[in-house]
């Protein structure tokens, strides 16, 4: 408990919360009680928004719409049909969630600006409906007389009880949010925000992650809207409009986009800020807007982030809690045949890809046998990385096919290709800086056994999936010799170590084929030798490795076969010594038409 408290700014936050609770219990006036209740409702709204905006990183402008729909469902069913709370509340959650499910498929595919505008458009249509369809919605005036919350045998009518009830629901909301984000699922979101390509090439289904976040945000919005209807007894188009959306955005950005505490802090602060500034009468919104802008400029990670920075400044970096002892060292779960199969594991045939008038790949073909280490060389711009992108699914070719383990994966989505057993690294390393090495590697397991959203929510106590993932991660870390820094945050590691973390992460998916894009770049001689040795050991286990490299020394110690590309075509393939002596290769790659003797290319040591 003590260690939990001392981590980050949890202690001051808990003390602040305790103070607020004490105030509410003993000193609050009815007005204060009402204010704190409103804070809770907005906190719930913001918690939901954090899923889609903070965790999934998508600027949805429909959050206020979901809030309003929840309020209207409650209002309509309660005032016109007399439904009790236990019926209206779930329906107010299900309604927006259903809408989210329906619009998610077309809308989530859109690029950022278009996505925002689409969600805005939907919001505006719903707003118009609310105003125009006055028979049902009460038009501009809305619906009044929404009753207090009625549970069987209990009416929650006085302000104090309402306060507790609303905050109890907020607490449940916080718990669910915590469950969703604490395990592999949360780390998957983190990596997704960091770099989409790295995330999907580890098997994370981006579309599914976004979908879950979107629907969850809608559910929370609906719940908050329903509660608001019961608290102020009125629902009107104001509950759906753009002004509310702006308020929600402001609260989220000021509190902190991904922190549960940030939702509560942001909501409370903005609600109170508006009240305090009311003193300024006409100028209050101007002051409020200016203050919000100032916070936005000065606190990029919201107030919670700013508080954490302050804490680091005063007390130093907090330790990352070590995982419980006795982490099982799980080896690769994928059975690898003892003998090399006769069939190639990967076949690439006639790949052609052109963009902007440049033929990046022009009829490229190759095949890899199980357990081989193949080097892919060629001058800059020859198409090496593009070929890796086509194989791993990040780029679509215009002609040709890619076959892996007998299956045609030419048009398969990136995450599916990763789950079939192809894993890769990138020229630029993308790690999540403030997660530990172990967790950075563990996120690779989210694709295969991360489980869905529902499983994440339903996890009680120790997160078994996360533990298993960390077990895999530790094993992978051992293979790369970085188990001793497993608990270090990645942001502070030297480059060579970061490269090893990235390779370990790619290894943690238990791949059959490993694509490495210039892994030796930036490493010193010792590190290169070390890495080469480790790659050889992977191959010995039956993992096929395709390495793109400029560094021929590094490859010399490693590759059994070389393939040389130049301007999108394969110009030589075969045993390394032969390829390196090939005149076409020498000319293309090194630009030396001079006699081969001038550069006696020594055999690998």
């Amino acid at each position: 408990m003590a260690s939990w408290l001392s981590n980050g700014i949890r202690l001051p936050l808990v003390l602040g919360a305790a103070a607020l609770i004490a105030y509410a219990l003993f000193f609050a006036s009815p007005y204060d009680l009402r204010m704190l209740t409103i804070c809770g409702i907005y906190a719930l709204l913001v918690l939901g928004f954090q899923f889609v905006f903070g965790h999934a990183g998508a600027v949805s402008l429909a959050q206020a719409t979901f809030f309003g729909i929840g309020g209207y469902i409650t209002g309509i069913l309660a005032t016109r049909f007399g439904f009790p709370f236990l019926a209206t509340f779930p329906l107010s959650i299900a309604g927006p969630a259903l809408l989210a499910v329906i619009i998610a498929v077309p809308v989530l595919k859109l690029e950022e600006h278009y996505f925002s505008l689409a969600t805005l458009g939907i919001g505006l249509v719903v707003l118009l409906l609310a105003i125009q369809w006055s028979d049902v919605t009460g038009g501009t005036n809305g619906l009044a007389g929404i009753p207090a919350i009625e549970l069987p045998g209990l009416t929650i009518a006085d302000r104090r009880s309402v306060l507790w009830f609303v905050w109890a629901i907020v607490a449940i909301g916080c718990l669910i949010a915590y469950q969703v984000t604490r395990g592999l699922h949360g780390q998957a979101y983190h990596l997704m925000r960091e770099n989409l390509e790295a995330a999907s090439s580890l098997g994370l289904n981006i579309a599914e992650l976004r979908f879950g976040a979107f629907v969850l945000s809608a559910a929370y919005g609906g719940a908050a809207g329903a509660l608001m209807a019961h608290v102020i007894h009125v629902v009107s188009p104001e509950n759906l409009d753009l002004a509310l959306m702006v308020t929600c955005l402001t609260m989220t950005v000021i509190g902190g986009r991904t922190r549960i505490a940030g939702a509560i802090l942001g909501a409370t602060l903005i609600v109170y800020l508006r009240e305090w500034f009311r003193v300024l009468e006409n100028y209050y919104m101007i002051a409020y807007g200016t203050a919000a802008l100032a916070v936005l400029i000065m606190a990029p990670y919201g107030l919670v982030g700013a508080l954490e920075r302050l804490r680091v400044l005063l007390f130093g970096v907090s330790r990352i809690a070590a995982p419980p002892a006795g982490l099982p060292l799980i080896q690769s779960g994928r059975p690898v045949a003892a003998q090399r199969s006769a069939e190639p594991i990967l076949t690439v045939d006639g790949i052609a890809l052109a963009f902007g008038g440049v033929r990046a790949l022009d009829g490229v073909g190759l095949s890899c046998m199980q357990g081989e280490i193949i080097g892919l060389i060629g001058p800059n711009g020859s198409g090496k990385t593009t070929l890796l992108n086509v194989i791993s699914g990040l780029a679509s070719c215009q002609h040709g096919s890619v076959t892996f383990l007998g299956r045609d994966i030419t048009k398969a989505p990136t995450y599916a290709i990763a789950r079939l057993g192809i894993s890769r690294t990138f020229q630029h390393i993308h790690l999540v800086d403030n997660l530990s090495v172990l967790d950075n590697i563990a996120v690779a397991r989210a694709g295969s056994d991360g489980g869905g959203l529902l499983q994440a929510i339903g996890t009680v106590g120790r997160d078994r999936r996360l533990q298993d993932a960390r077990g895999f991660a530790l094993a992978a870390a051992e293979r790369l010799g970085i188990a001793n820094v497993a608990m270090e945050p990645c942001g502070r590691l030297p480059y060579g170590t970061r490269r090893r973390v990235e390779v370990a992460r790619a290894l943690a998916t238990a791949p059959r084929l490993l694509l490495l894009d210039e892994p030796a770049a930036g490493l010193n001689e010792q590190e290169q030798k070390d890495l080469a040795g480790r790659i050889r050991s992977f191959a010995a286990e039956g993992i096929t490795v395709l390495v793109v490299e400029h560094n021929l020394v590094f490859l010399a110690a490693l590759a059994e076969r070389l393939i040389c590309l130049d301007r999108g075509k394969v110009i030589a393939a075969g045993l390394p010594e032969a390829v390196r002596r090939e005149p076409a290769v020498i000319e293309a790659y090194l630009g030396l038409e001079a006699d081969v003797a001038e550069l006696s290319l020594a055999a690998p040591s």
Partner: protein
Amino acid sequence: MSALLNIDGLSVSYGQVSALRDVSISVNPGEAVALVGANGAGKSTLFESIVGFLRPRSGHLHFLGKDMSGVSPERRARLGLGYAPEGRRVFPGMTVRENLEVAVFAGKAEREQRLQRAFALFPQLAERHAQLAWQLSGGQQQMLAIGRALMGRPRLLLLDEPSLGLSPKLADEVLAAVRVIIQDGTAVLLAEQNVRKALTYCERAYVLEIGKVVLSGATSALRGTEEIRRAYLGD
């Protein structure tokens, strides 16, 4: 100090990576100096530091005798630093003529004059003067990038990997312009992966290997040495 460019003990980090370590080079007026080294050796990083996109961790950078620390890239360009980057980076939605014109900060007559000089240097550009830059071939884009860099009448031209993605013949065509550029009064610092070509067109060379200068001297002396071979093949 008569050197156009004088770099002393420069160290640059790219985030976590130490890309350049204690690099010292200089370029004098009228020279064509080559910077060779394998990919990842630090050539582009050095150029980005000279241009002003990267701030060095330590060391000094003097251009035309003035200390460049804190000087913005646009100011350096106006002082006489021309830059043709790796990957060309021509303005894709503008025509050839517009790409050249936009780089001139002088009156219309002067602009026209410089335009004609650029066309004289690269006749292929003259033929295509109204074509949009993204439609040009790799070689033509390279010519355009160099032409654009020269439009400001720079004292020093930084040429980053002009032969990238070009056939040897085309690369020769582009690099032949280097001698003409020198004659016109602009010094050249040429970064190249292609050793032979770099040494053919330049008098002096520096060899970079993983961020450090391992060799320097007249190209006639360097050709065919062990160090050059090792810098690429590391035998």
